[in-house]
C-alpha cells in the first residue's frame, strides 16, 4: 500500500495548516474539548436510532437493524470548487438524457458510429418497451446520483453515474439535521448552503413531469418494495417530506386505464410514481412474471400517458460500467463540447487488448462487474490476496464481457474523529441531481461516504463505510 502522504488531504492539503475552505471550521475545532466531541459522537448515534435511520443488511439472518456510522467532522467544499462541479454535472446529466432519448428513438449516435452497436443490442438493461416512446416532459432520469472522487486540489473525476434509483439522499438530509442539532453555534460561524429544500425541489421536479392524463394538481406517490428493503427508511422519509403517499404494490391496481391506490374512500389515480423498485420488478406483465413487487399492467398505462414513472424504465443502459467507459464520447456527441468533468480511465475487458493490459497489471487495478453495484463482486487489486487475484483472473478469462477495470485511484482523504483525535480516511461524494423539463437542479451538498478502516479505499456502507455531512460554503463563488 502506498504511504498516506501520496493522497490529497482535503483538510490540510500537503501542509500543516488548514486549506481555506476548512479554516473557519478548524478554528472552531481547536476551541473544542475532545471529550465533549466524543460525547457528541455517541449522541449522534442515539439521534439516528431514534429517528429510525437504520438499514437491513441483505443476507443477514439475525434481522437486526444497523446504523451506517456517522462521522461528525464535515467534508467541506468551497463555493468555487462546487460551481465547477455543478457545470460538469449538468453537462453530464443532460447528455445522459439526450443519450437515452436517442437510443430509444432515432439512434443517431449508433448511426454515427460513435458507439458500438453491441453495447446496446446486448445490454441487459435495455428495455424494449421504451422504443419509440417519449416519457412526459422528455425526462428519463428525474433523479441522478453522480459519484465523484477527488485526487488532488483541482482534480475531480466521475467514478460512476447512478441513473436508475440512486439512494442515499436521506443521509444527506439527516446528517445535516443532526449536525444542526448538535452544533448550532458552528453554523453561525461558517456559512453553509442549505440542503433542506431537497424534498420540495424533488416534488416540484416530479410534478413538472406529470402525464397527459393529469388534469389537477399532480398526485405523487413513492413506490417501495416494503418494510424489509434496506432503503425503506429513505422511501418513507422522502414520501413524508414531500407530502406524498408511500405505497407498495399491494396498494395499487390498474383501474379505468389509470394506476390507482386503494384509499379509505376507494381507488384514487396516481399521476407521478417515484418508484424505488428496479425495472425488472415494476410490472409482471411486461418484465419478470414472478415479481410480487410490481403492478400488472403498469407499463401499458405508462405508454398510454396515464402515469409518469421516475425514473423511466430502461435508464440503466446509461449507467452500466461498459457504457460509462464511452461517456466522454457520449457527452461530446450531445453537448458539442469536451466533458467538463473527467471520467476515470477505464479498460474494457471485452476488448482483447484491454483485457491483456488488465491481466498484466491486475495487482494495481480495481476490477468491477459491468452491472455490479454496492461494492459487491469487485476486486481491489492492491488490497487483495494472491488467491483472490487468481480467482478473479479466472473469472475475467471466462467472461471478459462482464468486467471493466480501472487504475486504483488515489482517493482524497478527509479526517474523521477517532479516539486518538483526527485521522485521515478516504472519501467519495454523491451529489443528487434533479431533472425536470426545463432545468437541472443540483442541491449544494451531497452524500460523502468515508472508508472508516485506515487505508481502505472501499466506501460502500455494505463494506464498512460511513458517512459525513457535506458542506458547500456559501461564500467564495
Amino acid at each position, binding site marked *: 500500500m502506498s504511504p498516506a502522504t501520496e493522497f490529497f488531504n482535503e483538510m490540510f492539503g500537503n501542509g500543516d495548516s488548514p486549506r481555506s475552505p476548512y479554516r473557519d471550521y478548524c478554528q472552531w475545532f481547536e476551541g473544542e474539548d475532545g471529550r465533549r466531541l466524543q460525547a457528541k459522537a455517541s449522541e449522534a448515534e442515539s439521534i439516528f*436510532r*431514534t*429517528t*429510525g435511520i437504520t438499514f437491513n443488511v441483505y443476507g443477514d439472518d439475525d434481522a437486526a437493524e444497523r446504523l451506517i456510522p456517522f462521522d461528525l467532522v464535515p467534508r467541506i467544499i468551497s463555493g468555487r470548487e462546487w460551481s465547477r462541479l455543478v457545470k460538469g454535472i449538468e453537462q453530464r446529466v443532460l447528455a445522459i438524457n439526450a443519450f437515452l432519448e436517442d437510443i430509444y428513438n432515432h439512434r443517431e449516435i449508433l448511426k454515427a458510429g460513435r458507439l458500438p452497436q453491441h453495447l446496446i443490442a446486448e445490454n441487459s438493461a435495455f428495455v424494449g418497451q421504451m422504443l419509440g416512446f417519449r416519457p412526459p416532459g422528455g425526462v428519463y432520469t428525474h433523479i441522478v446520483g453522480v459519484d465523484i472522487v477527488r485526487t488532488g486540489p483541482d482534480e475531480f473525476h466521475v467514478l460512476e453515474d447512478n441513473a436508475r434509483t440512486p439512494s442515499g439522499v436521506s443521509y444527506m438530509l439527516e446528517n445535516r439535521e443532526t449536525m444542526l442539532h448538535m452544533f448550532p453555534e458552528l453554523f453561525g460561524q461558517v456559512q453553509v448552503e442549505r440542503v433542506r429544500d431537497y424534498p420540495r425541489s424533488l416534488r416540484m421536479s416530479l410534478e413538472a413531469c406529470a402525464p397527459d392524463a393529469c388534469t389537477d394538481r399532480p398526485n405523487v406517490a413513492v413506490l417501495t418494495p416494503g*418494510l424489509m428493503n434496506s432503503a*425503506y427508511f429513505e422511501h*418513507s*422519509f422522502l*414520501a*413524508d417530506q414531500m407530502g*406524498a*403517499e*408511500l*405505497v*407498495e404494490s*399491494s*396498494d395499487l391496481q390498474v383501474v379505468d386505464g389509470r394506476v390507482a*391506490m*386503494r*384509499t*379509505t*374512500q*376507494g381507488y384514487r389515480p396516481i399521476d407521478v410514481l417515484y418508484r424505488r423498485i428496479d425495472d425488472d420488478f415494476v410490472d409482471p406483465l411486461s418484465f419478470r412474471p414472478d415479481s410480487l413487487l410490481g403492478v400488472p399492467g403498469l407499463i401499458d398505462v405508462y405508454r398510454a400517458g396515464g402515469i409518469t414513472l421516475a425514473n423511466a424504465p430502461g435508464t440503466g443502459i446509461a449507467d452500466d460500467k461498459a457504457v460509462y467507459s464511452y461517456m466522454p464520447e457520449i457527452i461530446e456527441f450531445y453537448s458539442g463540447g469536451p466533458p467538463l468533468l473527467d471520467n476515470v480511465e477505464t479498460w474494457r475487458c471485452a476488448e482483447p487488448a484491454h483485457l491483456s493490459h488488465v491481466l498484466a497489471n491486475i495487482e494495481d487495478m480495481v476490477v468491477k462487474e459491468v452491472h455490479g453495484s454496492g461494492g459487491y463482486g469487485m476486486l481491489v487489486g492492491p488490497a487483495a490476496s494472491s488467491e483472490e487475484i487468481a480467482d478473479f483472473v479466472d473469472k475475467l478469462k471466462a467472461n471478459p464481457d462482464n468486467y471493466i477495470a480501472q487504475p486504483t485511484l488515489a482517493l482524497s482523504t478527509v479526517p474523521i474523529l477517532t479516539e486518538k483525535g483526527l485521522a485521515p480516511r478516504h472519501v467519495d461524494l454523491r451529489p443528487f441531481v434533479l431533472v425536470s423539463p426545463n432545468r437541472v437542479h443540483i442541491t449544494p451538498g451531497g452524500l460523502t461516504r468515508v472508508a472508516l478502516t485506515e487505508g481502505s479505499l472501499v466506501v460502500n456502507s455494505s463494506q464498512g463505510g460511513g458517512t459525513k455531512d457535506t458542506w458547500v460554503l456559501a461564500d467564495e463563488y
Partner: protein
Amino acid sequence: MLGKTAGGLFWMFRYLERSDNLARLIDAGVNIAAGTTSDPADVWRSVLISAGVSDDRISHESPTVHQVIEELLCDPDNPSSVRAMIAQARNAGRMVRTALSRETWESVNRCWITLDDLLDHRLNERDIQNALVEIRRQSALVHGSMHGTMLRDDDFAFCRLGTCIERADYTARILDVKYYVLLPTAFHVGSPLDNVQWETILRSVSAHQSYLWLHQGEISAAGIAEFLILDDRMPRSIAFSVKKMASNLRYLEQIYEQRHRSHDLIDSMMDELAETKIDDVINNGLHEFIQMLGGRNAELAQQIEADYRFYH
C-alpha cells in the same frame, strides 16, 4: 389516505393500548400480592387468566411472579407479551411513518428501543415495578406526542378508533373474567366483597382512586360494574370508549361523505348503552351482557376494517 395506512394506525394504537393494559394488570397483581395475606399464587393465576393466557400454559402447581415476568413481559416469542406487542406497535408505526408526525414516530420508536432493551434482561422481582412504570410512561409519551402534534384529521380518527376498540375490549374482558366475583354478591347486597378481587379489577383499569372518590369509599358489585360499563366520565369505561368511537366514526362519515355499516353498528351500541340500567344487567346476567358487548365490539372492529379498506 391509503387503506393500508388507516389499518396501520389502527393497529399501532391497538397494540400500544393492549400492552399498556397488560402493564396495568400486572401492576395490580404486584400491588395485591405485596399487600395481602392471601396466597400470591392465587393472585398470579388470576392475572394470567385475565391476560388471556390459556389454562394449559399456566403452571398448575403455583404460578409465580417469575412466570408472569417471563411470559407476559419479556418473552419476544409470545405474541401477547408486552415486549412483542411493543415491537408490533413500532413495526406498524414504521409502516405508516408518513402518516405520523415526526414526534409521534420518534416517541413510538424510542418506546420500542427503550422497552426492548429493558425487557431483554431477565427482570427480577425487585425491578418489576420500575419496568411497569417505564412501560406506562413510554406509552403515555406516545399518546402525548400524538395529541400534541397530530392533525385532527382521518389519520387521527383511526388512531383513536384503535385505542378505544382495544380499551373497550380490555375492560369488557376484565369484567368477564371476574364476573363470578361480582355476581354472587348481587344477591347479598351489603356483604363485603373479597378485598383482593375488587382491587384487582379497579386497579387494573387504574380506576381505584376515582371509584373510591365517587363512591365515598363504598364498595359494591353493582357500583363497580356500573362504573366500568356505564359511567362515561371514566376514561377506561366501556361507555366512554364507545362514545369516543362514535364521535370518530361520525367525523369520518362527515369528511368522507360516506355512511357505512359500522355507523349503524356504533349507533345501536350507543342507543343500547343509553337505555341500560345496571340492576337489569346484574339480574339478567352480567356475564351474558359482557359477552354480548364483547361480541359487538369485535364485530365493529371487523366492520371498520372492511368499510375503510384496510386490506384487499
